[in-house]
């Protein structure tokens, strides 16, 4: 077994795959980071991602343009997130319940739309125009790191580029300061004239946009089809990624890579006849999340101070 693993082909394949599996998690987690940094917990990621997957697929199918699909899927994600924004920010109701409702809604919505467009049962799954990988000149010819890093789909580059960009936005712009302040002490922010509601609407819609984009990657980046339950829990994992990454863009990068790697390797290990049942490998991310949460107890909590609490705007 080991002689198969330690070949260039295996490792390159593994690393390439890792970047691909990481991408949707990274996009969704970064989106959720914006939302949670401003104090809004959005657990409807799974549903929003699914909608993004579907809408991206449909638009690409009908227009033949994968990028239009990506844009449409992202916007659709924002639209769904708008529901959460209205319920959580304007009406101040339980953010957890709103998220659960959105999940169920999106599962139904996505399958319904698919069935309506393509009919109840299909012999052959319709395929849409997918995204094409970009081969960066010169760099992609380098051994090992060439194919791994420089022959990826454009969304992969976008996702990874968003990490330093997000860091910059959050910590080096006035907007980012407002977002962070609103998430820590909304009353203080409101008192100096920052619109808590305005900031939160922005971040929640942005979260929807990025999560929708993550969804489009699933349908247009890999298989170019749409399957039932295509997101397979990635939305929930994205939530865990945010926590494990301790609400920092680079931490999230690390956590997402970790989960992505686990995902990429478990298939390969199975093929190699690795003895551990694959179910236990799949469990690792979830167990690790719980362990990470335990280990974070007692240390100064990295979570935004006002996370999950509706802001009613009343000075006491």
């Amino acid at each position: 077994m080991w002689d198969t693993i330690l070949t260039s082909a295996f490792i390159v394949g593994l690393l390439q795959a890792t970047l691909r599996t990481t991408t949707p998690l990274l996009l969704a987690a970064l989106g959720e980071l914006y939302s949670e940094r401003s104090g809004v917990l959005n657990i409807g990621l799974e549903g929003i991602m699914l909608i993004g997957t579907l809408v991206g697929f449909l638009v690409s199918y009908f227009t033949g343009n994968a990028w239009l699909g990506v844009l449409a899927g992202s916007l659709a994600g924002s639209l769904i997130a708008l529901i959460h924004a209205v319920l959580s920010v304007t009406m101040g109701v339980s953010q957890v319940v709103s998220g659960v409702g959105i999940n169920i809604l999106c599962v139904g919505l996505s399958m319904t739309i698919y069935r309506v467009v393509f009919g109840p049962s299909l012999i052959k799954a319709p395929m849409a125009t997918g995204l094409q990988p970009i081969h960066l000149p010169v760099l992609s010819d380098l051994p090992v790191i060439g194919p791994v890093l420089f022959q990826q789909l454009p969304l992969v580059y976008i996702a990874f580029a968003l990490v330093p960009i997000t860091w910059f936005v959050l910590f080096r712009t006035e907007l980012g300061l407002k977002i962070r302040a609103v998430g820590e002490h909304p009353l203080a922010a409101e008192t100096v004239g920052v619109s808590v509601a305005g900031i939160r609407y922005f971040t929640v819609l942005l979260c929807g946009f990025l999560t929708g984009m993550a969804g489009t990657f699933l349908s247009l980046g890999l298989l170019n089809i749409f399957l039932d339950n295509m997101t397979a829990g990635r939305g929930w994992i994205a939530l865990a990624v945010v926590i494990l990454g301790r609400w920092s863009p680079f931490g999230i990068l690390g956590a997402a890579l970790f989960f992505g790697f686990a995902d990429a390797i478990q298939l390969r290990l199975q093929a190699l006849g690795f003895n551990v049942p694959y179910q236990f490998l799949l469990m690792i991310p979830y167990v690790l999340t719980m362990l990470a949460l335990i280990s974070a107890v007692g240390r100064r909590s990295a979570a935004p101070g006002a996370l999950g609490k509706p802001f009613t705007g009343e000075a006491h």
Partner: protein
Amino acid sequence: MLAKLGKTAQPWRDWLVQFGMALLAVALALLVGAVIILLMGESPVAAYRAILYGAFGNINNLSETVVKAAPLVLAGAGLAIAYRANMWNIGAEGQIYVGGMAAICVGLYLGDLPAVIVLPLAALAGFIGGALWAGIAGILKVRLGIDEVINTIMLNYIAALGVNWLIHGPLKDPAAGFPRTAMIPINAQLPILIPRTRLHLGVVMAIVLAVLLQWILWRTSLGYRIRAVGQNKTAARYGGINVGRTMMIAMLISGGMAGLAGMNQTNGLHFRMLQDISGGIGFTAIAVALLAGNQPIATLLSGFILAALDVGANAMQIRAHVPIEVVKIIQGLVILFVVGREYFNRRILARRRSLAERQEHEEKRRAETAGLESAS
């Protein structure tokens, strides 16, 4: 109109208002669903009529609806208890798996014993399995202060994967082509109540337990403590209540009830453990609890309604050419409209309180001008 609502103060009128809002939420969800169906070019009337037929049209359909409702009621009533204590258990799905697995094991290994022994044991195993699974998240919350929402969700996946492994591996039915356990012997199966249907004893269990939980919540000291802790931990502590212990008990109860829902599915419906034994019941049960306003006895109705939607969906697809997933849309909308209720409740409360304050202010002024001391 809000002001008018603010004037009523009798509790039964309050419950009526809550009930009305729940119905309104369902109606709105159905309305939006109708619009969506229209947009698809189909007839909402035909679709909803098909649902009604599919859910209630004949004895067989009705029994299917009731059978579908039973685990929803079980899990939903349990969740209602947890939510009352402010424990956001999103892990009913995983608890169903664990409870069901425990019940199946009892069936597989003790299934030769008489039914009078096996069935209660299976139910007990189901309850304990689900309770312990929920208890993990409960301990982490009570002892370490870790949010139970993420933990229960993580445990969902771990449970599903664990069961997946079991039915692929050690407990796999050798005779079967695809992964599942062997069938449990007849003694471990919940008896059918109405012949030629699938309506089993679990339905009775659901009804009895929903009533029991309602009674516990409102008529026992434990229920009092659960409600107190969910409303105001500080005041509960001040009243001498052990907050952590109460939260834990509520969590265990909800996990146990979900475990029983799992046992329902394994020992009453499928008689074996399957990959998708739950079919999303754990999540629908959340809607059941919320729609019922976290009143266990009301889950009988809300569970029934949501089950009817699920069961009727098939007929809707066949007869009215509307995809079954539309029902999921409606269920999601129900949750969203129901949660919006919180917002209106708050407004009504504020209105009512300011009315009381103003009343008192008026009386005081009247008393002062009349030269008498205020009579209160």
